[in-house]
């Protein structure tokens, strides 16, 4: 069930009405049921995967906690008898047991993810090796990727690691845990919420709050605007350009880059708006995933403002553990002694950064494109880190203050840099991506921008007008938003104005949204009417 399908809207209407009609203590159960219904409609076999993850995580969480209790009891009972050494030994023994349980949980769930997501990628790679030796190639397997598996797997892994670390107690009600894992607004594209952020608001009883509800509704509407009016419209041109690299190189690549940046932003943040808005309509608070990322002045800042829950997940569960683990510290010490302070200090950071970005890359998709994309992100971040002192010196000498113009320059630079990296998302393979990137410089012919060629990409003049208006609206919205919540500002305005804005927005989505026949099936059969 996609957010943009009629069945989702219907599902939502039914669910929300029931939600506020039934006794409040049943609300979370309804959400759980709804989430499973939602998931069921995207293929019943998907349910098996998510159930396996829920059940395994649930029992292992309890197991780890049980060991904690056992340890506490044992230490309390034998408080007098045991020496410090013995206590330490016992603690280590328990920790080791917990560790194996954690490991089992991670192995199992990551294993599922690996098999469904990366098997064909692995086969493709093995085949290319086999073909060197002229051996028979393996055939691809037909696995349908369960919806949202990357997201809910990461949610549960964060949960079990936190339980292991003793950050919080495990959830004792399997239904509640199941709801945390499968909460339907988050299933398709996140955000990757943490248990301690989401759980309480999820299980609480919520009475109907007109203000929260209408705020949620507005946000949903805004999300649909971004997705339907902008993203799903501009995608036609993006696909035309990126699917036909032989035809569209040079300046078209730049056009494609910028269009894709718009599409991705509108699509992803629009989807998250719908997620957060729907949750809000249910009285549930979900953490933000974006803070106006395209206004970032550096890549490092960009990644703090784009897909935040993913970034912090990688930071907390991979980057930190990896860079402060014993072997890494030893390595650091070793290299400091042998290669000097400068290099030694950098080794843990560099290793961890590259590992994180490699993982981020492959998490996004099982292809070399995403791996290279991830690694390039990491490398650029490291380079800019190294250049930092140089920049500072430069600034002291040249004395460019924090002027508006300079800020704009940095924002533009970051936008272009991130867009260039995203070329890897768009093209068939890494080779073509690089070829296309360099063709921008090899063929700096600007003519297609003005000779009407842009109208042959699948968008006509009317589409461009809608898009330009839409983008202007997005940018101004973000600019206003820097001063605070736009919805709060609106709610202070007279009712007539407020309602008119909503009604206009509603009809804008309804009429100018790129949905239905003619958009999803490329059958422009009504063109002649």
């Amino acid at each position, binding site marked *: 069930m996609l957010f943009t399908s009629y069945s989702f809207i219907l599902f939502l209407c039914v669910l929300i009405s029931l939600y506020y009609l039934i006794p409040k203590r049943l609300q979370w159960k309804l959400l759980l049921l709804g989430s499973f219904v939602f998931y069921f409609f995207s293929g019943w076999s998907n349910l098996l995967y998510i159930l396996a993850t829920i059940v395994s995580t649930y029992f292992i969480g309890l197991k780890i906690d049980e060991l904690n209790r056992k340890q506490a009891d044992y230490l309390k009972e034998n408080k007098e008898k045991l020496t410090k050494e013995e206590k330490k030994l016992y603690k280590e023994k328990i920790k080791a047991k917990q560790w194996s349980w954690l490991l089992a949980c991670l192995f199992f769930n990551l294993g599922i993810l690996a098999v469904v997501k990366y098997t064909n990628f692995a086969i493709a*790679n093995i085949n290319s090796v086999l073909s060197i030796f002229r051996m028979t190639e393996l055939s691809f397997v037909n696995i349908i990727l369960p919806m949202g598996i990357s997201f809910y797997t990461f949610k549960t892994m964060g949960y079990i690691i936190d339980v292991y670390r003793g950050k919080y107690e495990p959830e004792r009600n399997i239904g509640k845990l199941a709801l945390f894992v499968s909460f339907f607004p988050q299933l*398709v594209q996140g955000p990757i919420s943490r248990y301690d952020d989401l759980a309480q608001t999820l299980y609480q009883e919520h009475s109907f709050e007109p203000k929260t509800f209408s705020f949620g509704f507005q946000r949903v509407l805004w999300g649909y605007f971004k997705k339907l009016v902008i993203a799903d419209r501009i995608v036609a041109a993006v696909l035309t350009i990126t699917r036909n690299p032989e035809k569209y190189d040079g300046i078209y690549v730049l056009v494609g880059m910028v269009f894709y940046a718009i599409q991705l932003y509108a699509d992803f943040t629009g989807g998250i708006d719908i997620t957060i808005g729907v949750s809000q309509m249910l009285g549930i608070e979900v953490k933000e995933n974006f803070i106006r990322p395209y206004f970032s002045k550096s890549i490092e800042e960009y990644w703090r403002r784009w897909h935040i829950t993913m970034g912090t997940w990688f930071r907390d569960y991979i980057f930190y553990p990896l860079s402060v683990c014993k072997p890494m510290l030893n390595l650091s010490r070793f290299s400091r002694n042998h290669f000097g302070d400068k290099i030694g200090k950098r080794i843990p950071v560099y290793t961890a950064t590259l590992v994180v970005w490699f993982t981020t890359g492959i998490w996004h998709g099982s292809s070399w494109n995403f791996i290279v994309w991830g690694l390039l992100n990491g490398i650029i971040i490291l380079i800019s880190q190294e250049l930092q002192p140089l920049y500072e010196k430069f600034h002291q000498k040249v004395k460019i203050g924090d002027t508006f113009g300079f800020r704009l320059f940095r924002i533009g630079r970051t936008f272009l840099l991130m867009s260039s990296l995203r070329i890897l998302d768009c093209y068939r393979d890494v080779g073509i991506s690089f070829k296309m990137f360099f063709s921008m410089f090899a063929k700096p012919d600007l003519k297609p921008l003005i000779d009407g060629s842009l109208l042959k990409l699948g968008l006509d003049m009317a589409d461009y007008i809608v898009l330009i208006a839409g983008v202007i609206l997005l940018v101004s919205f973000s600019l206003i938003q820097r001063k605070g919540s736009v919805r709060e500002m609106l709610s202070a305005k007279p009712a007539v104005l407020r309602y008119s804005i909503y009604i206009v927005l509603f009809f804008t989505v309804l009429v100018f949204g790129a949905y239905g026949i003619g958009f999803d099936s490329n059958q422009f059969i009504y063109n002649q009417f």
Partner: protein
Amino acid sequence: MKMRILAILMLVAIIFAGCGNEAGKNDPSPTPSTPATSEPTPTPVAEAKSKYYFEYNGVKIYMDDEAKPILEKLGEPPFGSFESPSCAFQGVDRTYYYNGFELYTYTEGDDETEYFFTVKFMSDAVSTPEGVSIGDKAEKVIEKYGENYTETSGQYVYTDQNSKMSFKIQSGEVAAIELSLIINE
């Protein structure tokens, strides 16, 4: 701390993928915003042309070929053509009358490009590339085309890729021959 193993574990999935050259021909989804839904698509098999085609004056006609260049090579149809719009006018089917055969085309797309969908044999003046023409004995069909056919409505039908060759057999003789595009309903 054993966090190290934890981190390594994260990589299991990746190492699992092994290393290779740029052979990852998976189609990266154009919307990595929903990475969980980007499925790898296996390398498509290059689509070969059907072994069934029609040849006239050295011009080869495969089903679903674009009609315009081929019609130009064949020259004006000596007996004209017929145009049949469906009830309302979208999508025009055309029939071109040549000496001994008729060519059928359909149109598709905004620019109404024409594609072949049938060659109908009208007399023994023409024969299939395998050498069968109207009036031949049914045995000759099997001799030339083999046993691998299906029989429906008194026709021997041979299929390959997107095309099928049909021979209508009446009292042991080939009464009609048609090469046509297989249309999936």
